[in-house]
């Protein structure tokens, strides 16, 4: 009898504990996800307001309204019809596209040497790469401007920002080096036993394995060029035919300074390609951010 009486008591204690545990987990789930939704609103509402304003009439964009009365899709057409806007697109694509290719081609061998060769001065070289990466571009801009504008007469074009990318970009070298460090040396040794020289090893063995790293570097460099404001400001400002979207966008605001709807439409058009590219290459990108943050 005592046994029978004991049993239900024993059984019920774990169920209440279990129930409170389950209730606590549920409450925590609610709390965490409410916070998540609040954060999501903080991160997305600016985009939403910008898009909504870009679809308002010019009159309504100057009011406190948040939602358009009539949806003016024509605003976007008007932005495209602005003189220069298509040229800025073209220039941005040239700068970002060419710059990305040049950066990858010139940075891969350097990163490979820093990651896998043993030579005196390797640590010093790596420190210099990191120093270059951390250097604000304004530090050397006076001599660089004099060099490009006075000696080579290239101001008024984007060449002064594109050409340097053919000589290795410090951030890309660093990121690629971090990535190449993760490739085990056994693969390289095996290739060498098979009679591959360093160049062949790099091209045949390392490159295929380094694809994610290269993708990340290419993306970062593409976005860097797309976003760059200072370079075009210094070298291209005198010639609107050489402006990029990031630089032109600000002057667009200047020319349409009461047309918030058009300015916001132009803003959307500058943001959209970056976000589209991100959705196609999300994995490579996030991997790249993590690589630069975690020590090598």
């Amino acid at each position, binding site marked *: 009898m005592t046994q029978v009486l004991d049993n239900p008591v024993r059984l019920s204690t774990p169920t209440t504990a279990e129930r409170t545990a389950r209730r606590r987990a549920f409450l*925590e*789930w609610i709390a*965490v996800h409410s916070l998540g939704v609040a*954060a999501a609103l*903080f*991160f*997305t509402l*600016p985009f939403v*307001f910008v898009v909504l*304003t870009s679809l308002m009439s010019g009159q309504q964009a100057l*009011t*406190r309204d*948040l939602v358009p009365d009539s949806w003016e899709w024509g605003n976007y057409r008007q932005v495209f019809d602005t003189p220069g806007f298509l040229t800025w697109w073209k220039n941005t694509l040239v700068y970002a596209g060419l710059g990305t290719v040049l950066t990858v081609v*010139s940075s891969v*061998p*350097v990163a490979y*040497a820093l990651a896998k*060769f043993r030579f005196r001065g390797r*640590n010093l070289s790596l420190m210099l790469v*990191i*120093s270059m990466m*951390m*250097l*604000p*571009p*304004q*530090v*050397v*801009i*006076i*001599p660089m*401007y004099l*060099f490009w504008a006075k000696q080579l007469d290239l101001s008024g074009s984007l060449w002064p920002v594109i050409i*340097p990318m053919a*000589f290795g970009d410090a951030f890309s*070298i660093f990121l690629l080096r971090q990535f190449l460090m993760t490739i085990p040396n056994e693969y390289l040794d095996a290739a060498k036993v098979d009679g591959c020289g360093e160049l062949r090893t790099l091209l045949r063995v390392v490159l295929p394995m380094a694809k994610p790293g290269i993708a990340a570097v290419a993306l970062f460099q593409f976005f860097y060029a*797309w976003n760059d*404001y*200072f370079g075009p*400001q*210094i070298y291209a400002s005198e010639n609107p035919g050489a*402006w990029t979207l*990031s*630089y*032109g966008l*600000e*002057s667009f*605001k200047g020319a349409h*300074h009461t047309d918030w709807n058009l300015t*916001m439409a132009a803003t959307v058009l*500058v*943001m959209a390609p*970056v*976000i589209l590219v*991100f959705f196609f290459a999300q994995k490579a990108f996030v991997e790249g*951010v993590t690589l630069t*943050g*975690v*020590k*090598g």
Partner: protein
Amino acid sequence: MSTQSLRVSTRTLRSKRRMSALRTVAFLSPWLIGFGVFFAYPLVSTVYFSFMKYDGFGVPEFRGLGNWAYVFNDYPLFWPALRNTLWLVLVMVTCRVLFGLGVGLLITKIKTGTGVFRTLFYLPYLAPPVAATLAFVFLLNPGTGPVNSILGDLGLPTPGWFTDPTWSKPALTALALWGVGDLMVIFMAALLDVPKEQYEAAELDGTSAWQRFRFVTLPNISPIVMFAVVTGVIQTMQYYTQPLVAGKVASGIIGGSGQQFEPGYPDKSTLTLPQLVYNLGFQRFDYGSACVVALVLFALAMAFTALLMRRRGGLIQAGD
């Protein structure tokens, strides 16, 4: 016989070594050229110009410490820019690191729809700076902007944001917090790396959630927190596009090709050191003084970079 073969082998060894040195130089050559032309030469040249009077025409004229004295004593924008930089280091960097850590923690706790949340949190980081700044100047415009409309409806104060010197840097901080995605990803990776057993052991000891954070999480991720702080400070030294565009757009006077505007609008509150290089060099054509500011900037950036690379406990390790 034996000495000869020894000699032969040292010779092949030496030529082998020479070959490998040549190979190393060949692989490094793009960067070696880039380092010389785009780093070492202009840096030396910047030092040279900091002692010269030069406006881009004619011949540079020796001015001794004149440029240095001018920048530190008479240039009205230098000290406000340095003070702003200090403010940004203390407030903006701190807020960004804490917020990044908070969002990183949050994303590791979210169990439903993690991918969607992560993408939404990360996206603003990608917004091109000029576009993001324009968007924020619009969102925070004091009269009709959505933020002040909502604050007004709730009966809260409606600050002047980018048009008010006391609110312009907090507005820039809000913009920086919006783009916290890079830190979120780094913290997320670090948090997921903390060994699970340590949490389980702590839980068995009956610790509270805060104690687990304080004594398990924090010690494990402290190198990443340090990394975030130091790189944040270095980024602050480079902080240029957002404050410049915000000031220009908010002041309503915008020039594409070198038209003048009040630097650091409103009331010098958005000036940063890189902007001074532009102001002195490309608006006043005082290349010498611009180089003085450039060198101050260089010294600050390199000091923090050295902190990042410090051998013992360095955050970026050079070795294999």
